[in-house]
């Protein structure tokens, strides 16, 4: 029987790069979709607001696992075959978009109303207001919760192993199936996740402190 040694640990460590890649892709795509929904959520058109609110509510009220199953098994049964990596990134991007939309809506709303009024009185159009006045300020406010959400995203990538994609979690399970030394293996897997998430958590908390300090002046 194979035992858990350096080659196995190296295999797990290498798979961690796929977890990071998946997180990055889901974050980038999720940001684009989430940004659109955040602005829709604040639109003057009622229908757009309702669509965005409905999307956010639905995605936040179902398990990520279901989004993953729907996009992988569901679509493949419907004849659309998605490769595991694509299904995994698509479903994580959908999940991320709903949370990011809600975080950014809050950030945009917490820019003082006078900023809108002042920029409107300078005859800026709505896109110009967003581009030059509101978003630069909202970005600063949104930074701590966005980094905090990244931690959730990294952790939630662990479920994509159900569709057969070899990420950090899957690598741990594969080694476990070969060596049956679950305790050591999952300690290592947990340690790697912790090594990714803990600095992000601290960064988020640090940014929050910096922002609070600058706002109280």
């Amino acid at each position: 029987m194979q035992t858990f040694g350096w080659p196995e640990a190296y295999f797990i460590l290498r798979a961690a790069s796929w977890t990071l890649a998946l997180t990055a892709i889901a974050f980038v795509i999720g940001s684009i979709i989430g940004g659109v929904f955040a602005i829709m959520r604040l639109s003057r058109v009622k229908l757009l607001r309702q669509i965005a609110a409905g999307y956010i509510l639905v995605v936040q009220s179902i398990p990520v696992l279901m989004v993953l199953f729907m996009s992988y098994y569901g679509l493949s049964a419907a004849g659309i075959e998605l490769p595991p990596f694509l299904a995994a990134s698509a479903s994580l991007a959908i999940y991320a978009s709903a949370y990011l939309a809600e975080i950014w809506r809050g950030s945009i709303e917490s820019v003082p109303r006078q900023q809108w009024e002042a920029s409107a009185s300078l005859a800026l159009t709505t896109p110009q207001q967003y581009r030059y006045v509101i978003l630069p300020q909202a970005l600063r406010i949104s930074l701590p919760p966005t980094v905090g959400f990244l931690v959730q995203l990294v952790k939630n990538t662990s479920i994509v192993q159900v569709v057969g994609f070899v990420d950090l979690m899957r690598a741990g399970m594969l080694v476990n199936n070969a060596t049956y030394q679950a305790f050591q293996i999952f300690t290592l897997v947990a340690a790697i996740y912790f090594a990714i998430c803990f600095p992000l958590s601290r960064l988020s908390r640090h940014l929050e402190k910096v922002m609070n300090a600058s706002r109280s002046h």
Partner: protein
Amino acid sequence: MLFQDVISRWPMILNGVGLTIVLSFVAIGLGLVLATLMSALRSLAGSWAGYVVDAYVELMRNTPFLVQLFMIFFGLPQLGIRMNGLEASLLAMTLNLAAYATEIIRAGVDSIHKSQVEAGLALAMSRRQVFQYVILQPAFARVWPALSSQFVLMMLASSICSFVSVQELSGTAAIIEADTFRSFETYIVVTVIYLVLALSVKLALNWLGRRIFPQVSGLARVTEAHGEAA
């Protein structure tokens, strides 16, 4: 689309829904008790106890729920602690929720002004009484919205317990899917059930919050730690 194959298995689905609800509520109840104890330990006991609680909270919050579940289900038997999927799920959910709830309650405890504690002590209340009536109860009232969203997230995360072959809602979905080969229909039905469950639990918890903490409804509440998933 053939939904009747899925719908006709409604007794199975109902069982799954029942197990999801029971699993979530037991874990939430136990997790909340554990979180309250840990918060008390942080506030009342010496600083080393606070460090232990902090370390526990950071450890749980920065590792995925799935890894915690596997550690309990596959890892602990190696140390001689063996349990079935349901017990492992319950333990993992309780430990996970307790960490998040401790962090949320901490935000509430931190929001209680020091002068309140001093006022309590000046009224000859004991340290335990001050903690219970002056710190904990108002803190709970303030963070109830954040706690209830965490409860809903825990219920959604319980779907992950199907990985250790627990027949809750998503575990049931996997069986129905394997039986009928109607994946899309199965997952649509189950997703809609999760949606209805999550929304009703959210409404019920809001109602409960207004009943338990009537004195603060309408007041400013601490709503940070919002949107954190397992």
